[in-house]
């Protein structure tokens, strides 16, 4: 990466972080949604400790999926509305790299808080201490992957009616492998089985998403801006 491109990458990340910090409600909203959704489950299925402990990994992971998906709205929509997205596409930088920068910033704002608060929610559900660590690790690997894959959906549906629901329709099926391996890792840990395989698969998925999703997203952005 040449100096100019590296400069553009860091500039993009810093810009998005700065914008999010100036509208702090965006960070908080995703987090609050996550906590609320997780809290709904005991209200729905009853507070029996063994049951909650059994469903905890799945519940936390599904809530993380939904929160990630809702947060996708803010990835490109703001820039699209004021014309800055067009300038980003017109910039003499690899668009995939610029997309990567935006997704990284997006994860720091909307994904990392989930990773940090998930152990607390796991405690609420009575997960043992070791499982909490695996939960955080699985989310740390999984939420960036969700961001990269979700970006494709966000780019495809830029400016369309029925945006939110349509994005979920496109993106949730693609999220399923991450869900299976992420929740599976925590369950394996809770049953005393080896966690390594699950986490490695999550990591592999993240690497593949990191390399290929930005280019699909860039193509989708160009299509949407025509």
């Amino acid at each position, binding site marked *: 990466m040449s100096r*100019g*491109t590296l*400069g*553009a990458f860091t*500039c*993009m990340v810093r*810009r998005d972080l*700065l*914008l999010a910090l*100036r*509208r702090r409600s965006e960070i908080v909203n995703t987090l609050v949604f996550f906590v609320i959704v997780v809290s709904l489950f005991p209200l729905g299925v009853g507070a029996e400790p063994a049951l909650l402990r059994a469903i905890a990994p799945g519940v936390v992971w599904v809530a993380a999926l939904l929160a990630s998906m809702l947060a996708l709205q803010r990835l490109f929509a703001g820039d699209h509305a*004021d*014309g*800055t997205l*067009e*300038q*980003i*596409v*017109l*910039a*003499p*930088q*690899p668009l995939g790299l*610029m997309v990567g920068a935006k997704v990284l910033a997006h994860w720091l704002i909307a994904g990392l808080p989930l990773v940090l608060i998930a152990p607390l929610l796991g405690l609420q559900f009575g997960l043992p201490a070791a499982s909490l660590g695996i939960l955080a690790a699985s989310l740390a690997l999984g939420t960036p992957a969700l961001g990269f894959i979700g970006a494709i959906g966000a780019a495809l549906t830029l400016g369309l009616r029925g945006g939110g629901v349509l994005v979920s329709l496109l993106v949730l099926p693609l999220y399923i492998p991450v869900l299976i391996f992420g929740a599976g890792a925590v369950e394996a840990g809770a049953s005393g089985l080896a966690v390594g395989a699950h986490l490695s698969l999550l990591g592999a998925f993240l690497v593949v998403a990191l390399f290929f999703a930005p280019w699909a997203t860039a193509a989708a952005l160009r299509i949407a*801006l*025509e």
Partner: protein
Amino acid sequence: MLEAIGLACVRGERRLFRDLAFSLAPGTLLQVHGPNGSGKTSLLRILAGVLAPAAGEVRWSGRRIGALGDEYRRQLAYVGHQNAIKDDLSGVENLMVSERLAGADATVALARAALARLGLKGFEDVPTRALSQGQKRRAALARLAFRRACGLWVLDEPFVALDATAVREVQALVGDQLAAGGMVVLTTHQDVAIRAPLQQDLRLGT
């Protein structure tokens, strides 16, 4: 040298124009005229490379802009209808972002100077949300004051919402760009008094 060869544009189901061709030498100002809906904005977006034409191609120094990619975009400054500035950032911050994305080394001093040239002295550090429509347009156009060695400017209605002083300033900027050997393509409904040694006029919608 910018060339358009056999350009055609179809939006929705309407054919806006076909077999459009022109060629611009360095220092040329191309003014695109036409009623609303005649395809002026679409033409400018095709020249910028954002929109793919239904037929034909655009060439820069003999090579297709699609093939040139980033090399072409490095020499291009595009100002569309939208201001392309973030409301939550100040004028200076917006300019720094825009210049860094273009791969240029930007300093705050240069950004302030560019904003001052467009009459925004004293407003450089205010979030652009607090500026008036005309001031926002000036903040958007300050990008042009920054771009020294830029080959091609594509400006879509740059004078909208500007007062007389600002219009004169932007016209001076365009004049400087042309004098430096750059090219400018613009659309406007207003009368433009720019000293352009080479000028072409293109009329759409006829």
